[in-house]
């Protein structure tokens, strides 16, 4: 078997372990700050996964293309590749969890019959979703509660400035 493919299979295996573990965690503990859990789990798991893949490679494919060269080269490549996989997974996850369009398709599916815009909006519950997003921003430290108001934190302000600059750069209008 092609050594590069063996390496690819090993990395895919490592990512599969990550997916299974986080799925078990989600189902067992229902974490509230799921995004943070995903990132922390990745940070903790990465060295372990790298070592496991390295050991597996030594056993199964001594001259594997991916694992050739000095240790730093190997480590750099492994970390980069797993980071890419993790990023792709985060995109999928954000898409499933946060996307308005996905939720709309789900609600239309659950409705079973054609629904008016008002019914669709009622099922979606835009008010609840609106408040939920504000609370997520508060929990993440971008906003803080000041009586009835949400006040932007320095961290939130720097993110907002970056977003505004990017929107201007790409000529995207206000968006959202």
């Amino acid at each position, binding site marked *: 078997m*092609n050594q590069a493919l063996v390496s690819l299979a090993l990395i895919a295996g490592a990512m599969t372990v990550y997916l299974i573990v986080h799925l078990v965690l989600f189902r067992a503990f*229902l974490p509230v700050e799921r995004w943070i859990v995903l990132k922390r789990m990745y940070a903790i798991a990465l060295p372990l996964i790298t070592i496991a893949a390295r050991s597996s490679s030594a056993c199964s494919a001594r001259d594997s293309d991916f694992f050739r*060269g000095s240790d730093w080269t190997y480590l750099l490549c492994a970390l980069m590749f797993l980071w890419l996989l993790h990023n792709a997974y985060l995109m999928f996850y954000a898409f499933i969890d946060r996307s308005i369009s996905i939720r709309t*398709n789900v609600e239309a599916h659950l409705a079973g019959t054609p629904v008016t815009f008002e019914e669709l909006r009622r099922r979606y519950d835009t008010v609840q979703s609106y408040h939920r997003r504000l609370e997520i921003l508060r929990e993440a430290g971008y906003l803080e509660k000041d009586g*009835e108001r949400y006040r932007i934190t320095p961290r*939130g302000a720097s993110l907002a400035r*970056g977003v505004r600059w990017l929107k201007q750069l790409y000529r995207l209008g206000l968006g*959202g």
Partner: protein
Amino acid sequence: MLGVMVAAIVVFLVFLVVHLPFFLLREVKARTRTMTMAMLVCTPLLWPAYHFVNERWLASDVGGTAGIVIFVIVAFTFLWFGYLQFYFSFERSPSLRFLVEIMESEGGALTPAELQARFSFEDVFRRRVGQMADVKLLLTETRDGTVRYFNSPKGDLVGRGCWWVKKAMRLGSGG
């Protein structure tokens, strides 16, 4: 292997350079399509880039052609996915728009009602439903003078699949 990663990054940088002028020079409507086309145009550069990088600087990678081709395409595709995630986060995210609106408000603080007055989340929802109808994820029918929405076969596949994943991961309704 380092050659694969470096080649993917180099071609990804070329992709950034290729697609950015479209956005900088005029307002692009079909943004995802523009980025996908730029990505496809750049993909054939992966192979020469890999050989260039490998032969000039590394001279270390060996292995079957098929494996290298798969690796370099996978690495480039994931870089592109990461960029799409980054792009859509600032282009589409209502949450980031909330931050911008609050930052630009006097005193940097707003009540939910004041924020809603500046940037209506319901309008976002209305716009998204319209966009979904445009790309045929939702179809419409008019009955008794009222427009009704339902999933297209593609939209139903998405809705059903994502509902299953949401349930499996216990994510709640989300959105």
